[in-house]
């Protein structure tokens, strides 16, 4: 399965990868889907469509496809951070993106992207490969 070098990874039901900006441009033409579109950004309801991200299933302890209910796309420019995992996969996310991180005592907590540190084990579904350790 192809994994992009960076960017938010959104899959359709056939495992094709879509860029969030392309999806937003396409779906904003359907006004009834648009939950809000103002100076801060746009939110689009796609709960009835087959788009997925990989997210960590706490019960099954593995990465699984999870249906996306809403696309949020900001207009305001903010700091974009690059998170690189030990398997070489990287994503670029905004500073307030939340990641599920496993602590030393096996607990899970949310950590903002700008608070991530090398060595942290990220469980959020950056890739279908599963959890990864942050390199930088």
């Amino acid at each position, binding site marked *: 399965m192809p994994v992009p070098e960076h960017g938010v990874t959104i899959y359709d039901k056939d495992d094709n990868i879509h860029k969030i900006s392309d999806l937003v441009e396409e779906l904003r033409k359907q006004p*009834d*889907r648009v*939950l*809000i579109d*103002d100076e*801060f*950004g746009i*939110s689009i*309801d796609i*709960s009835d469509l087959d788009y997925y991200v990989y997210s960590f299933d706490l019960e099954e302890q593995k990465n699984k496809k999870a249906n996306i*209910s*809403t696309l*949020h796309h*900001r207009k*305001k420019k*903010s700091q974009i951070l690059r998170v690189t995992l030990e398997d070489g996969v990287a994503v670029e996310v*905004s500073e*307030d993106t939340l990641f599920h991180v496993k602590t030393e005592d096996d607990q899970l907590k949310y950590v*903002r992207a700008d*608070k991530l540190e090398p060595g942290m084990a990220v469980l959020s579904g950056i890739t279908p490969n599963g959890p990864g350790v942050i390199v930088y």
Partner: protein
Amino acid sequence: MDFKNDFEKKTFETCSIFLSEDRISLEHNYTIRTEKTIVSFTGNPQKEIDVLTMEFPNNVKLLVSCKDYGTNVPPAAIQEWGDVLKVLNKHSLFSTYFGLVVASKGFSEGCEAWAKTDNIGLIPPYRGERNEFDESQIFKMLQRVIHVFLKTVYRRGAAEISDNENFYWLCYKTVADL
């Protein structure tokens, strides 16, 4: 309409954009009347509940709590609001209640855990280091959340966002960028 403070008045005015006057109310020292029974929070020790209620179509009710404290809202206040919501939803015959807490000075650490547990929206969102916002930002956030909440309920119904932490996250993601 009697308001306790200017923050409460502005919160009411922001909510009033979305509903006609007969579907929005503000009560102080509220005695909760559920659809099955009456539960009073005014016993001893007295627990003062002020509530701004927005009644949307299809028996969806959004209960807004205004906290104009001198400092960050403590977790106990969120826990209390969660108790109110649990009582109302447990004894509800036809309505679905959602809870939102709007704080002029933001929230202290630990609030988000209680908010997620009871599926309560927090405005402004608790984000750790930056936890204070201008009043105008707070009311813009409130306006945005109500707008998105209304459209989401219209498209998907209330059941989905009343589950788990969904309303908490709807609020967080709607205002995290502001």
